[in-house]
């Protein structure tokens, strides 16, 4: 059979458009990252819900397993090793709460504040950051920051549990120097945001040995009793 088509430009252009569309579509489909963007909102919502459920389930499982691990550890050991373990925990708690002197490698921060910009809140943030980065014993201007120490604002500067602090503030922390420094200087972290204030400068140096005296105000418990 014979086919006769009048060679019109319209046909030519139509087929050219078809070819262009096909080629573009093939390329776009290849380049889509995991086709998430092409899915509809309902599909994505269902996907997120499913993943959330899965996360919850895994977290429950994790908590359950950690509880079983802890109970197994205490029932499986003899009384002697249990006492030794508890003594070690007690020592650690004494260091963290500032009851006993401590010593170890760490970081020394020197905070310069020419214009008196900083307030108690800023130093509290700094100490919080150091503790969350694994700082075990914190010393501010030679004073141990324990459980009951708090920064206060005075008319001519700051106080630590009522003791006036003189500039520059020297903060020493016992802990892993690399962990502490990286958490302090990360972008958007506490040191870069403090240094945005005029006249504020924070020097950070890693030190081989920080010696922390015991805190002057020890925790006393009058109202709190051990919960069973």
């Amino acid at each position, binding site marked *: 059979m014979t*086919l006769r088509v009048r060679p019109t430009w319209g046909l030519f252009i*139509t*087929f050219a*458009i078809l*070819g262009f569309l096909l080629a573009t579509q093939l390329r776009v489909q290849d380049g889509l990252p995991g086709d998430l963007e092409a899915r509809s909102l309902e599909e994505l919502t269902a996907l997120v819900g499913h993943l959330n459920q899965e996360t919850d389930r895994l977290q429950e499982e994790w908590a359950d397993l950690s509880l079983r691990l802890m109970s197994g550890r205490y029932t499986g050991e003899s009384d002697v090793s249990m006492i030794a373990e508890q003594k070690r925990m007690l020592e650690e708690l004494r260091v963290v709460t500032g009851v006993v002197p401590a010593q170890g490698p760490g970081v020394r921060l020197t905070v310069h504040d020419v214009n008196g910009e900083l307030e108690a809140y800023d130093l509290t943030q700094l100490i919080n950051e150091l503790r969350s980065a694994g700082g075990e014993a914190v010393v501010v201007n030679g004073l141990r920051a324990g459980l009951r120490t708090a920064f206060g604002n005075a008319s001519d500067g700051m106080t630590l549990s009522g003791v006036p602090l003189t500039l520059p503030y020297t903060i020493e922390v016992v802990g892993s120097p690399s962990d502490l420094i990286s958490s302090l200087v990360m972008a958007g972290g506490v040191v870069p945001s403090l240094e945005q204030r005029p006249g504020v400068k924070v020097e950070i140096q890693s030190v081989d040995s920080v010696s922390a005296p015991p805190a002057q105000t020890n925790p006393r418990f009058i109202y709190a009793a051990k919960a069973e």
Partner: protein
Amino acid sequence: MIYFPLIGLLLGVLGGYLIRYDVPPEYARYLSIAVLAALDSTLGGVRALLERTFNDRLFITGFLSNTILAALITFFGDRLGVNLYLAAVIAFGVRLFQNLAIIRRLVFK
């Protein structure tokens, strides 16, 4: 001159790969349905050619309007929260296979 449209097709594919125009991902759905409509129209054209009822003006307007309307319907479906995309895929898909079957019959007649 049956090669004339084929040359156009080749040039279009070549152009698509050379120009490298990247459709934004949120419009990729509309392009895909447009491509399906374009394929359907083309197969309809081939069928009309074999049935000797081909009219190039009808073919070109059909091709363009089908392609654009398919993308528009999908777009409005998304706005209305109705998956008209699926309706378009089914309608064009069914017609595509029908046209293919008729073409097969006409070729082997």
